[in-house]
């Protein structure tokens, strides 16, 4: 296996166009190295992008936040550009593995490996993120929600790599909430997660809601039926309960026949509600509905 350390993005794309699918991009290696050791992956070449500044870091450009794919989870947790309304993204990054994994693992890897349980994908979906994908002499943009094709497979050609993730910086009355159900409080693989992006007006009417689930289907996805139900409604205990019931039904249908269908559809209600209340709290600065 050949290891290549390009000096810049141009070289990366050059190598990618030469090797295509035979070369794997390596950044943190927290997934790839394990797969190579297990014999599940055996690429001819590894292209190391971990020290390319062009692909790292978080920037603010006009109304967008742009994240380089080689940005680590730790860098996301600690980034001051990500304001408090984006707490859900930081919470998700903080819930990834252990400190060692967060120091190595990258958000680009989280997206491109397309695991159903990828922690940072639901918040990025709820933010309606756009992916910038480049190959030698070509560049395109695709919504993250359209990226996933199957478990472990995103829409990426052999000669392409992900070069940027971007989403609109939330306004004051917008917020991103996240909640993950794992089997323990740290170093837990997600059994179920939800991210909710919310915008409400002064009357508590939902202007925008985007809901994304993790570890339920083949890949993280938007819950469009529930979004549709909630949009335009006044948020209160009733609407939340109705949304939960609808969500339970949708998820039970999706997982029908699977052993976990009943559990996941019930748990989804609770996990969704927590993510929603977290988002609401960020919009309003108060939490009217949590009765704990």
């Amino acid at each position, binding site marked *: 296996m050949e290891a290549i350390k390009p000096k810049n993005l141009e070289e990366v794309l050059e190598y990618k166009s030469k090797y295509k699918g035979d070369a794997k991009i390596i950044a943190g290696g927290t997934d790839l190295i394990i797969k190579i050791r297990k014999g599940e992956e055996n690429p001819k070449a590894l292209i190391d992008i971990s020290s390319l500044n062009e692909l790292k870091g978080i920037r603010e450009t006009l109304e967008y936040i742009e994240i380089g794919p080689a940005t680590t989870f730790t860098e996301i947790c600690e980034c001051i550009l990500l304001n408090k309304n984006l707490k859900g993204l930081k919470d998700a990054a903080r819930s990834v593995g252990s400190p060692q994994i967060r120091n190595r693992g990258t958000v680009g890897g989280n997206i491109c490996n397309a695991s159903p349980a990828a922690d940072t994908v639901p918040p990025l979906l709820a933010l309606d993120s756009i992916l910038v994908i480049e190959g030698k002499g070509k560049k395109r943009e695709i919504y993250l929600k359209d990226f996933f094709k199957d478990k472990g497979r995103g829409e990426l050609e052999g000669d392409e790599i992900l070069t940027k993730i971007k989403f609109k910086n939330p306004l004051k009355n917008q917020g991103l909430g996240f909640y993950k*159900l794992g*089997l*323990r*409080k*740290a*170093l*837990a*693989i997600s*059994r179920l997660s939800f991210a909710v992006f919310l915008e409400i007006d002064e009357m508590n009417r939902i202007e925008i809601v985007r809901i994304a689930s993790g570890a339920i289907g083949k890949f993280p996805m938007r819950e469009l039926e529930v979004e549709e139900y909630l949009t335009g409604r006044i948020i209160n205990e009733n609407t939340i309960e109705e949304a939960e019931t609808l969500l339970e039904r949708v998820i039970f249908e999706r997982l029908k026949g699977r052993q*976990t269908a*009943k*559990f996941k559809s*019930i*748990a989804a*209600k*609770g*996990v969704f*509600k*927590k993510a929603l209340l977290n988002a609401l709290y960020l919009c309003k600065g108060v939490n009217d509905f949590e*009765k*704990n």
Partner: protein
Amino acid sequence: MKKRGKGIACIFYGTGYGNGFPDVSRAYARLLEDGRVEISVGATEVGQGAKTVMVQIAAETLGLLDKDIVLINEDTSKTPDAGTAAASRQTYNTGNAVKIACENLKEKILEDAAKLLGVNTKVGLCMKDGLIYVKSYPSKKVSLKEIAELNKDLQAEGVFTAHTTQMDENGQGAPYWPYTFASCAVEVEVDTETGEVSILRAKHVLDVGRAVNPSLVEGQIDGGFAMGVGYALMEDIGLKDGKMTNGSFEKYIIPTALDIPEIEKVLIEYPEDTAPYGAKGIGEPVMIPVAPAILNAIYDAIGVRFYEIPVTPERVLLALQSKG
């Protein structure tokens, strides 16, 4: 909604192999030329503190400091058999063997000392800090080093055979001695919407006989408590058609520090007559009451009695659902 509950569980546990299984520990003690004492014993250190405890028991018996004891263990070419580091038996069983070996060595040393000091009996001789002296005439003394120089072959064996009697065909009898007692209390919080169980606080009371090393006992309580939490709430080998489906720590979940609360610890020291300085085995007893205390607390919180562990979020939610 988050619901809280409290639970208590009490246990007693017979340490050692018990039930008729032969349970013998052996140790050698030898006076070295420089006046230090070498203890050879097959006790295995598996993190529980055997190396520390055996040295402490030897030092106490010989009136020496820990640094004057040279411990040889885990080397079967040099050490006599002291049985396994299992059944919570090393401190009590092998500790006894070490103590007996040291007492036997001490007798031999005192016999030599009596001769050297010109007294007619070892009665009234004291041994402390590497010196043997006449109690009523302390300036009449000889050092262990001086004795070692004159007698290069001072060594002794200690053998301890634990009580272990097979039960009769009705399961009656006295299989073990001694027994260690423990009780554990926990407060839990159950999230009825996600099924998560959090342990908010815990108290652990342990009858240790005597804490040879209190920090080690507290460490054992921390570890045993964490194991009990894993047992109650997380750990599942996922047996399917005789095969483990959770065969790695990726899927076989054990607790992390974040899952474990601060544990208030109470050590009850009621010395056991047959034990080395009263110390009983505590390795397994610290863990046993934890899972039942947690299950009792969950019952107190949500009114569901679980008969199957681990109590995962899945089991909690499904049980709450069928309870209605």
